[in-house]
């Protein structure tokens, strides 16, 4: 037994050594486990993620754009894109043949792409993106597991060309390329979400973990009224084609809050189609906003407003128009057709006398002229959320030349955009406030804040200007803008286009008209500009004013603006279509001040004719049904004016002190009981 015990003790001893070895082995394993799972855990976790997870983007749906009535102007719809894993294709030739047929792609090119991807060991290749619904359905019907689909979204513009320049378009992965789509791209695009796609070793997706959910882009509600926009585009198209214009722009704006109801350019484009040709690409430009032009006679509105505020000139003050011939240092200014002797200030605007405007401008003086041009918002951007807005050109006062004041008085040496003109005209229309044009009504369901309008001219000046501009429509160059059932005011402008390359004015025009209606409480300001017209019929009064007429008639009806004239005015109807040669006289004729030659750029084809307008307009007023006529308050003290108001039954809004100098409505005009009558008092 001793031997046995000895053997046993030896065995246990050896066993103990071996057991110790095994335990040490276990401890080594434990140490390794702690090293892997605790100390270097993050390293391995990162490696695991890297090889198993594909970071993918979940595209956020782009915000919808609707007009003020909720009609969709731009929306994103889900579409399929096709991709394959080139390494998993059963056969590249068969695959190329099949896909090229089903997706109408060129076979050779597709084969090359697939083959290249395969040879480069790439596991992913877009075959065709954003395929049509029909293509998608036919491909799905094949039920081939190597054809894979990814849902993307395609931007759709249901109304096609309507409001295309405002809404704009997108390219590529729904990135804004122009219009609101670009200007508010950040707001519209939202934030793409991120997800991790867990894949197995063959890169097949197993599970999707969403880290951050996609945030949809903000929907936008525009101030645009799709109905008015449609009318504007239709009429702009008609006018541009009828007058062989190269381009055209029109804008309809609410003068009180600056909301743009319609804004159009011609030629237009279909945002659903990517532009291919040069013409199509050029059509994407928002000319009314990004391409400034010399406004011409339209600008006399600013000259006269400045004069009313800063000089003693009144509408009936007389201006010497030098019989149509005014020498200035380095150049001679002519009227377009016939010279005028003495004109009242009102007549200067009605007949669009260049020399008259220069004389008035001279009384204002350069400093105050410069200030008023700025007050009306020229030389600075309107701040619309659209790309490439031009501030126009307004030279600094210290860079004005000897004749700059004269030029600017009649709308030369300055360039403006249509939007700037609409804003300036709104100042007169809304009683003296510079408003901030507005294009976005609601952003993400939240009303966009209004920028408080800034008073830039006195109310009385604005009211006087309204009536002076009504005179343009009634008696002057803008007769074609006379509306049925509504009073209207406006100003024509025909600026010769300056050929920058050859440094002279060409015989093609920028024919424009800006106006408002109704005169006493304007609901709309409309600016129409046609670029590249020529001849008599291509002038502001004959080309653009009729477009104003058509647009205003439809827009006022659509907006349910109460009529302020009886509908049936046969004489006016008869006159409307007729274009008098008086229109022509708004042409701002000038010669470049290079001192070498002073050629009179006169339109020879225009034949001076008797103007039946004067008597015609009187007839209109004579034929008006005799409602209560507005009493003449001018010259009365405030107390006396208030007495009259209480007797007659209208309310009086007075400004200033002294005796009544101006009133609106004018004396003798019809008025409605309870109507607001504004008067300006002065000493």
């Amino acid at each position, binding site marked *: 037994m001793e031997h046995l015990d000895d053997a046993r003790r030896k065995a246990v001893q*050896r066993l103990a050594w071996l057991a110790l070895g095994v335990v040490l082995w276990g401890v080594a*394993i434990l140490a390794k486990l702690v090293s892997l799972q605790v100390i270097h855990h993050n390293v391995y976790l990162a490696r695991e993620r890297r090889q198993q997870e594909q970071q993918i983007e979940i595209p956020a749906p782009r915000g919808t754009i609707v007009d003020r009535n909720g009609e969709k102007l731009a929306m994103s719809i889900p579409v399929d894109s096709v991709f394959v894993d080139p390494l998993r294709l059963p056969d590249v030739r068969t695959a190329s043949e099949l896909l090229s047929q089903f997706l109408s792609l060129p076979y050779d090119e597709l084969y090359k792409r697939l083959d290249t991807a395969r040879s480069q060991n790439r596991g992913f290749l877009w075959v065709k993106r954003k395929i049509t619904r029909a293509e998608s359905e036919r491909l799905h019907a094949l039920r081939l597991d190597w054809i894979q689909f990814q849902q993307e979204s395609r931007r759709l513009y249901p109304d096609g060309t309507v409001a295309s320049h405002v809404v704009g378009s997108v390219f590529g992965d729904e990135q804004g390329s122009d219009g609101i789509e670009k200007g508010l791209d950040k707001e519209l695009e939202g934030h793409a979400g991120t997800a991790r796609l867990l894949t197995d070793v063959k890169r097949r997706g*197993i599970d999707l973990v969403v880290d951050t959910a996609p945030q949809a882009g903000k929907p936008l509600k525009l101030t645009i009224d799709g109905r008015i926009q449609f009318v504007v585009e239709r009429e702009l198209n008609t006018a541009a084609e009828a007058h062989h214009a190269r381009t055209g722009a029109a804008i309809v704006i609410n003068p009180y809050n600056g909301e743009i109801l319609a804004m159009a350019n011609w030629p237009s484009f279909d945002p659903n189609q990517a532009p291919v040709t040069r013409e199509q690409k050029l059509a994407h430009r928002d000319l009314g906003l990004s391409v400034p032009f010399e406004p011409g006679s339209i600008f006399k509105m600013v000259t006269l407003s400045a004069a009313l505020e800063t000089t003693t000139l009144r509408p009936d003050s007389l201006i010497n128009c030098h019989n149509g011939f005014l020498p200035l240092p380095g150049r001679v200014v002519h009227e377009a057709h016939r010279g005028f002797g003495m004109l009242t200030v009102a007549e200067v605007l009605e007949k669009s006398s260049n020399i008259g405007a220069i004389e008035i401008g001279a009384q204002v003086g350069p400093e105050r002229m410069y200030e008023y041009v700025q007050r009306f918002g020229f030389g600075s951007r309107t701040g619309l959320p659209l790309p490439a807005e031009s501030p126009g050109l307004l030279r600094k006062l210290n860079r004005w030349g000897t004749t700059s004041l004269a030029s600017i008085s009649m709308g030369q040496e300055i360039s403006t955009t249509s939007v700037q003109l609409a804003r300036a005209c709104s100042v007169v229309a809304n009683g003296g406030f510079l408003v901030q044009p507005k294009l976005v009504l609601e952003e993400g369901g939240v009303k966009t804040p209004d920028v408080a309008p800034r008073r830039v001219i006195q109310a009385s000046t604005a009211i006087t200007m309204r009536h002076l501009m009504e005179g343009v429509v009634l008696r002057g160059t803008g007769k074609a803008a006379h509306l049925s059932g509504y009073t209207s005011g406006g100003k024509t402008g025909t600026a010769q286009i300056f050929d920058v390359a050859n440094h002279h004015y060409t015989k093609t025009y920028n024919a424009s008209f800006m106006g408002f209606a109704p005169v006493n409480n304007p609901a709309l300001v409309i600016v129409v500009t046609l670029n590249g017209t020529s001849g008599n019929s291509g002038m502001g009064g004959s080309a653009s004013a009729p477009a104003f007429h058509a647009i205003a008639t439809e827009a006022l009806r659509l907006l349910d603006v109460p009529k302020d004239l009886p509908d049936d005015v046969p004489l006016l109807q008869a006159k409307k279509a007729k274009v008098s040669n008086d229109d022509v006289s708004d042409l701002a004729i000038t010669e470049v001040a290079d001192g070498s030659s002073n050629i009179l750029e006169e339109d020879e084809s225009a034949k001076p004719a008797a103007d039946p307008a004067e008597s015609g307009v009187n007839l209109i007023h004579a034929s008006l049904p005799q409602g209560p006529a507005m009493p003449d308050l001018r010259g009365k003290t405030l107390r006396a004016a208030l007495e009259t108001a209480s007797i007659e039954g209208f309310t009086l809004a007075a400004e200033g002190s002294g005796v009544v100098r101006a009133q609106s409505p004018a004396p003798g005009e019809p008025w409605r009981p309870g109507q607001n009558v504004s008067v300006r008092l002065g000493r």
Partner: protein
Amino acid sequence: MAQKLKTDHILFATVVMMVFFGLVMVYSASSVMADLKMGHSYYFVARQLFWVVIAVGVMMTLKMTHYRKLQHPAVAFPAMSIVLMMLIAVYVLDAKQHRWIRFGFIGIQPSELAKPALALFLAYFIALRARAINNRYTLLPALLAVGLVTVSVVVADLGTAVVLMLSAATVFFVAGLDWRYVMIAIGIGLVGCVAAVAAKPYRLTRIIGYIDPEYKIVYRVDSKLHTHVSEYLKRSLTTKDTSYQSEQSKIAVGAGGPMGQGLSMGKQKLLYLPEAHTDFIYAVVGEELGLFGTVGVLLAFGVILWRGIRATVLIPDEFGRYLALGVTTMLVVQGLMNISVVLGMMPTKGIPLPMISFGGSSLLSTLASLGILMNVSEHAG
């Protein structure tokens, strides 16, 4: 003999828990792959369950069979002979891998069955010749038997051969083998290693890849001696990506972290990790259950080691002692080797993790061995 024996509850509970845990892990590790390859996710776990029923039956039978009934030439010799015959037959029947003998849908790996058979035979033989353990008439037949089994296993299944040799060596060492013979055994072992490496060159790449993963030493040797070892290694690497499995299993275990990613939440088994439900199931345990799971499994093998050594020391007879020692060594060595391979501490070997990995033969052989160990443990008091 007739008295009611007290079951080794610790060992029994551990084994039952491990087998159940194994079923869960096999399902977790294989379901996705089974779904992809076989069409339904329960394919592997259902087969495993079938084997669990059989293997637990065998285990319970052996647990209730007195171990001394096994101490009989009519048990030891036929067991050894049948296994040897099967090992030779498998060369013909499984021409490719030399691993499987198939009966219908049931496949049997003779190399797995060799483990309990060899343990039984050695225990019987050493108990018979205990007094003359260092006698050449003891050693030569024993060496012949161990050599025959090992050689017939080694070509197809190097890992199992290593387990068999280590276990046999342990039993002889504890039985009182002279240091002289111990040295000879170590010598034979080294020669065997060199032979194994020489037989399949990729094994050299594996070993060098383990010692010198970035080939710093290899490059230095190349530049000094103007040899082209690195190129040779790289060429063999591109044909057989040896470090891939080991890298993927380390990533799985490391990514699991202290708490794990949650049962069935592991991602590495999604075909990144080859053999996730068999040889590398420990990596899935590590990824899904974290340090708790990995240390838990390690402790389970610690319990088996403890109960095995306890039985070895306390059992009065020599047969029982070497039987307990043999099966314990085989189970624990195989377990630790598997874990070491998974953790990248040893070159890759194709051996399953006892009780947990998918595989019927392994489960059968493991639970049979544990049934025997339980009975010995009961008799050890």
